[in-house]
């Protein structure tokens, strides 16, 4: 794949992630702090199809643009901490345990660390450790949403793979 083609593909993935992120922000949440995180499926697909650098790039650009469209600085720091930690875990798991773990399980681990990262930033900003009491709720939510995102990413990957090999 040529350099230009790859750049176009990556920009399209960023655009997709951003649109998904903005639409998802309009959906009311069941409980504070819990959401699907559909945009993370794009990072996961980028990790599988391109590599860790591209996955990080997409996540950081999407978080930056996402907080420009709505969120502000505190939301940016908040999402970035979760995003970096979650991508890091998924990159490591994918690199070393690709053959032992299925994509949904890698995604579940990413989701869990996404929520842990956000929780830590929250405890730090609020200067309050009591926030850790939220952990069990967030853990269970992360397992459910992470599995769903992983399923989505594997379907997306199978479809995109066919298109990408043709160009």
């Amino acid at each position, binding site marked *: 794949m040529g350099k230009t083609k790859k750049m176009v593909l990556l920009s399209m993935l960023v655009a997709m992630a951003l649109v998904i992120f903005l639409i998802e922000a309009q959906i009311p949440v069941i409980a504070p702090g819990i959401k699907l995180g559909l945009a993370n499926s794009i990072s996961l697909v980028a990790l599988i199809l391109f590599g860790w650098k591209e996955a990080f790039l997409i996540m950081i650009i999407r978080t930056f643009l996402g907080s420009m469209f709505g969120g502000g600085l505190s939301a940016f720091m908040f999402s970035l901490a979760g995003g970096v930690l979650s991508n890091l875990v998924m990159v490591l798991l994918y690199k070393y345990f690709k053959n032992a773990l*299925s994509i949904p399980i890698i995604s579940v681990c990413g989701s869990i660390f996404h929520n842990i990262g956000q929780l830590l930033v929250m405890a730090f900003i609020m200067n309050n450790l009591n926030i850790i009491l939220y952990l069990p709720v967030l*853990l269970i939510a992360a397992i459910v949403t992470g599995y769903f995102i992983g399923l989505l990413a594997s*379907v997306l990957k199978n479809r995109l793979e066919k298109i990408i090999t043709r160009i």
Partner: protein
Amino acid sequence: MKNLHMKKGDKIVGIILLIVVIISLSATAIYKNAIKGTQNIAVIKRDGTVLKTIDLNKAVEPQEFTIKADNGNFNTILVKNNTIKIIDANCLHKECVKSGAISQPGQMIVCLPDRLIITVEGQASSGIDSTSF
């Protein structure tokens, strides 16, 4: 669709996750039980400093007040029927308003943009008294 099949490591990770969830659930349950007391004191804090404490057991009549931050942000708080909730705020997502009313020790409402946190404590600790009075 070979990617949707379970792989051999999935079970191990699943078991580890189950154990982690059980441990965290029981740890928070034990902690919440330990801080349970005869009193329900709502503590409103910003950046770790106490702004206001309210005895929820005595708060039956509706009482409404607004807490303002230096940058002009505000949170309107309603105390009623032994519960406390944030009814209005000028933050973007209004997560604090969506959190609803709290009344039991260990529960909390968090407003991240305003760095405001409301917790309910089971006992009036001497630390709170000395800082707020």
